[in-house]
């Protein structure tokens, strides 16, 4: 085949696989959006778990813990985190992960079957740029706060921790991150590998210090940061909602990680070790630190807990960890944009793609009240889209398509592909997401964070998920399928798991 690297024979391929596979070192499909063959998968259960844990134990876990501690005490915080994360991690470990691992498809390529090619691109750009920019800004602002605290303690000055100095330092974090990202994935991996163990050390250190100073009964008696509430049940439900939203926030990342796993179990269960157990553990540490010190800002925990010298060292590590988190997030978004952003972005140079992701974050760091200082609202802005998106993907793949996708149709051009819908956009799926988002907004105002009366029994993310799921099912059955759109009648040909026919 002209222009293509020769494919190996049985003896040449990895693991003695079938004769049709690319030879190792010749063509690395894991850095493209091509479907991966089974022998190209690189992670077993433990390798996927290690990556998952590394992502979960990041500085955003401290922010999550502090946000939960605002509403509830230690016991209810732990319960809210396990319940909230448990439900949402179950859903994100199924909806984006299972199609990706089965077919080896890139996550945003996979949702072409649900939203159409143009529709998938809209979500990819929305999620990869807006959410990545917002998360990067949050982390950069935390970097700025931390470094101002370090400067104040080392040089004996009194810079305000929420002023222009913190924003300017946040901007420096963004610029440094862009410079590293522009050099490519090797430098990203090297920086992340160095910081992760230090962050785990800090988490363990906080646990040891907090428990050496307080008994369990003292910790459980601590009041929430927001004070005693007249309606503790509502506060508990707000805490559950925060964690549901925190779990759904993983939707953009998990499918592409699962794509690299060797088996469906190696794709599914590591999410429970990483984004569930490790996230909950790290966020619980955040709750303990915030409540024992009665301070919500994570960068203000280290010096009171560990003293000036160790505290400043810990803060520097936390600042660096924020950079590594920006790098991880930014790199994943850049890969997604390059693969699925259309011809223009595919041709764009790597540094320019970095600018697309981090440019908006460089502006957002000067508006900390928009994201960092209203973390709960910010997380709910993500959930308002991601919970219904996850629901539509879940119903489409597991119920309407019976877990079968035509890989060929995913890559066929608009007009030829059965996943064309209406000029490349599945309006029914978009309407279902809109219905879910509307339900969320009715139950929990995303601007004021004011809950409706029904919220205290339902949360907002779960009804948003249910409404979007039901709407997508009904619209598909009543509107899409009767018009012969979406390839819902396709079934696998006997003897082939991927070749489909009507």
């Amino acid at each position, binding site marked *: 085949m002209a*222009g293509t690297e020769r494919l190996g024979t049985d003896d040449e391929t990895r693991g003695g696989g079938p004769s049709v596979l690319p030879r190792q070192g010749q*063509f690395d499909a894991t850095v493209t959006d091509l479907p991966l*063959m089974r022998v190209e998968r690189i992670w077993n259960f433990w390798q996927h778990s290690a990556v998952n844990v590394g992502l979960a134990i990041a500085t955003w876990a401290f922010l999550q813990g502090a946000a939960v501690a605002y509403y509830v005490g230690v016991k209810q915080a732990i319960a809210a985190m396990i319940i909230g994360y448990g439900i949402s991690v179950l859903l994100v470990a199924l909806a984006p992960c299972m199609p990706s691992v*089965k077919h080896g498809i890139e996550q945003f390529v996979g949702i072409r079957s649900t939203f159409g090619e143009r529709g998938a691109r809209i979500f990819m750009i929305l999620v990869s740029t807006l959410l990545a920019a917002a998360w990067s800004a949050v982390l950069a602002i935390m970097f700025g706060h931390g470094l101002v605290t370090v400067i104040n303690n080392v040089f004996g000055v009194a810079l305000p921790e929420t002023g222009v100095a913190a924003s300017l330092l946040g901007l420096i974090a963004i610029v440094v991150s862009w410079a590293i990202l522009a050099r490519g994935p090797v430098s990203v991996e090297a920086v992340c590998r160095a910081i992760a163990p230090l962050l785990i050390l800090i988490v363990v250190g906080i646990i040891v210090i907090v428990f050496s100073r307080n008994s369990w009964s003292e910790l459980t008696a601590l009041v929430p940061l927001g004070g005693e509430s007249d309606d503790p049940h509502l506060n*508990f439900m707000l805490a559950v909602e925060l964690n549901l939203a925190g779990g759904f926030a993983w939707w953009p990342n998990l499918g592409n990680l699962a794509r690299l796993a060797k088996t469906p179990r190696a794709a*599914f269960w590591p999410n429970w070790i990483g984004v569930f157990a490790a996230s909950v553990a790290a966020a619980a540490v955040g709750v303990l630190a915030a409540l024992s010190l009665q301070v919500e800002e994570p960068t203000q925990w280290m010096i009171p807990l560990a003293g000036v010298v160790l505290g400043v060292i810990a803060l520097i590590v936390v600042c660096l960890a924020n950079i590594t988190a920006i790098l991880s997030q930014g790199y994943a978004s850049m890969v997604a944009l390059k693969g699925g952003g259309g011809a223009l972005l595919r041709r764009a140079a790597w540094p320019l793609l970095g600018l697309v992701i981090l440019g908006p974050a460089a502006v957002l760091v000067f508006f900390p009240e928009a994201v960092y200082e209203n973390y709960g609202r910010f997380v709910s802005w993500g959930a308002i889209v991601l919970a219904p998106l996850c629901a539509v993907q879940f119903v489409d793949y597991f119920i309407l398509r019976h877990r079968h996708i035509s890989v060929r149709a995913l890559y066929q051009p608009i007009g030829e592909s059965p996943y064309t819908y209406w000029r490349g956009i599945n309006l029914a799926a978009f309407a279902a997401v809109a219905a879910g988002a509307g339900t969320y907004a009715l139950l929990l105002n995303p601007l004021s964070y004011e809950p409706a009366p029904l919220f205290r029994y339902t949360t907002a993310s779960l009804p948003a998920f249910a409404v979007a799921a039901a709407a997508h099912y009904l619209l598909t059955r009543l509107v899409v399928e009767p018009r012969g759109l979406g390839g819902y009648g396709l079934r696998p040909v006997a*003897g*082939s798991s991927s070749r489909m026919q009507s």
Partner: protein
Amino acid sequence: MDAQILQDQLEQRIKFLESSNSAEHLVGDLPARDIVACVLALTLMTAVLLWWAY
């Protein structure tokens, strides 16, 4: 990466996936019992936590 190489690779991979021995190239589905076990464990855990924390 050359667009033609990517296109050729894509076409070749799709052919493998659609071949009669496609099961060799695809990863299977997650067993339903894994999902059921997860849902049951989550339900039980939620009930216990609500009793403990309330």
